[in-house]
């Protein structure tokens, strides 16, 4: 048993819905939980992992884990994150996420999207449609944010991989990760393999996600 | 049989660390037929030595050449393979079994030697 693990205290993670409105939310215990919805092969698992790594660099404790079945490419899948200022002991699955991220808007009518959510939960969706459309499609009651992540990715990267854009949106909406740490991760991952240009493209995509995400009031 | 040792005295893992110690084990007691070597008929071709499954043929090197010197009965199980592969067991003319007095190896019942 680590010394630091003893005497856990309740911590609060602050996150902003938009620039003007600051809100402090008490998450279950001291952990911020994210659930990702995507299709196998779309990169939700990598995105959750990258988010965990960026949060680690910020001095947080993190978890990232996908839900595994025997599904193949294209099947709906989920991935999860936990982020905390304290070591995370929990090893159960995420039941009441603070944030739900949907990588593919064709999944919105899937009732799984709403599982364990309440009005405090935030939903971020990669879609070209409107917030209203998302609300109608999903029946979600809480805060909804939308970002055209695939379009942005196509424009910036030439490939429809929305991960980095989504991370930008998450940074903006929740504050659990900060852009500069994600930038560092992008550099770590791509610089050696693909060079400066790919790094810069991804960083641009990340920033556009941050700038272009829009949320309901 | 060696003295049966207690568990603390044995090497770990059931390992045997004394290479080839089966040589202590006498297999000669299994014998019901005994090969008798008749040196005068032997051509020292080493076929008996080559085929003895129990390495019971005694060989000596004389002037750089191997010479058959009979049996190590401590090991010989009496299978008779040596006699079977011995070229002197066959009459070269008739291709029939050679008469005993012409052979280099003759198999005799172990009971013939009961008095030893």
């Amino acid at each position: 048993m680590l010394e630091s693990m003893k005497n856990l205290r309740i911590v609060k993670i602050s996150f902003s819905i938009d620039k003007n409105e600051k809100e402090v939310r008490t998450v279950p215990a001291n952990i911020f939980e994210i659930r990702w919805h995507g299709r196998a092969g779309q990169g939700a698992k990598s995105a959750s992992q990258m988010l965990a790594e960026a949060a680690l660099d910020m001095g947080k404790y993190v978890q990232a884990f996908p839900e595994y079945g025997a599904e193949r490419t294209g099947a709906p899948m989920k991935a999860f994150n936990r982020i905390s200022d304290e070591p995370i002991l929990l090893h159960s699955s995420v039941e009441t996420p603070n944030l739900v991220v949907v990588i593919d808007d064709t999944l919105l009518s899937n009732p799984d999207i709403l599982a364990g959510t309440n009005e405090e939960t935030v939903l971020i969706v990669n879609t070209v449609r409107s917030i209203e459309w998302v609300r109608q499609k999903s029946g979600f009651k809480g805060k909804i944010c939308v970002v055209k992540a695939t379009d942005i990715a196509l424009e910036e990267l030439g490939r429809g991989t929305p991960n980095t854009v989504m991370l930008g949106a998450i940074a903006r909406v929740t504050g659990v990760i900060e852009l500069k740490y994600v930038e560092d991760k992008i550099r770590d991952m791509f610089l050696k393999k693909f060079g400066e240009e790919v790094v810069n493209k991804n960083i641009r995509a990340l920033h556009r996600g941050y700038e272009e995400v829009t949320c309901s009031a | 049989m060696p003295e049966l040792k207690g568990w603390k005295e044995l090497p770990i893992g059931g390992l045997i660390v004394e290479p080839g110690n089966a040589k202590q084990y006498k297999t000669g007691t299994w014998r019901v037929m005994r090969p008798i070597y008749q040196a005068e008929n032997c051509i020292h071709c080493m076929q008996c030595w080559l085929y003895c499954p129990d390495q019971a043929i005694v060989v000596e090197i004389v002037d750089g050449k191997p010479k058959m010197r009979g049996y190590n009965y401590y090991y010989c199980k009496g299978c008779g393979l040596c006699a079977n592969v011995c070229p002197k067991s066959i009459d070269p003319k008739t291709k029939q079994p050679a008469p005993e007095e012409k052979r280099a190896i003759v198999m005799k019942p172990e009971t013939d030697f009961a008095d030893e």
Partner: protein
Amino acid sequence: MPLKQAITGAEAIAYAMKQINPDVVAAYPITPQTPVVEYFAKYVADGVVDTEMIPVESEHSAMSAVVGAAAAGARAFTATASVGLALMHEVVFIAASLRLPIVMAVANRALSGPINIHCDHSDAMAERDSGWIQLWAENAQEAYDFTVMAYRIAEHPDIRLPVMVNFDGFIISHGVEVVETLDDEVVKQFVGKPIRMNSLLDTSKPVTYGALDLYDYYFEHKRSQIEAMKHVPRVFKEVAEEFAKISGRKYDLVDEYMVDDAQYVMVALGSTAGTIKHTINELRKEGKKVGLVKPWVFRPFPKAEYQRILNGRKAVVVLDRSASFGAEAPLYETVKSALYEVAVRPQMGSYVYGLGGRDITPAHIRQAFEDAFNGNLIVDEERYLGLRE
């Protein structure tokens, strides 16, 4: 400098093995162990290690090959899970009885059938009497640490037994967590050079491995195997103490969490222990005197520790992630049997949970604790958490 990394348990183990740079790795892929082999194969392919890797055609051959390699004096490693471990079963026993210091990581997964790829402990429990030392990791950190410590225990001249490092399939193997890894050089120093004994490659001292051992000697050899296990607690503690010096992380035979004043103590293996700790934190805030005693070492079973810790507690609740059909669940049975000899026996309750990867949540753990608080434990009744009736 120790390095904090967000990596999976599988990568943590492969990373430890990279630092150890063993002589031989023989392994066959099986979910959810596969990434361990994949990461390691990449290290080999990139020349980061100079280990000889044997990509065998089955787990049976994986264990057979590491037996051959270890008998040839090599520091050998393999990894498996579930039915892969079951396929090895025969040779798992042979590895222990030949006293070969092999290390094997097991990403614990349910045994078939029906086939299931998720976590439970039925695979390792089926090997609990195989003569292997069993270490059980709660998280990726412990999986890394135990892998670093394993050869020191296995190769110790008083022990010479194989070590199984258990870590929960998917939950730990595929879950990304923060792992503090040590410097390569520190690990290398700590693990040291292999202690080679009775090598098949030493033609000047030929040894015979695996003789036919009949009723006149077999029993004596088993007795000496039993004896080797008795040295494990002492050696484990020595190694753990040294490990604490390089890592700051202190291990023992059991992990005691908030037990000092605890009246209600839970016992569980693996990742669930973390969820229990989390729940204990919540219950403590509510003023409940609860704690956890988790076996870090399950074989040999730290009986004396359990007796010392659990004597006189109000209740002991044991959670098992495997069933023993027609008998009590393995961890419960073991703990209960240990408590037969204590002066003041606690109430006891047996809970089976999580078979085939069924989730276990703080609510389930609370439920089991509630039964204990309410005096509602029946020593001979096995209960189930998260099961639909």
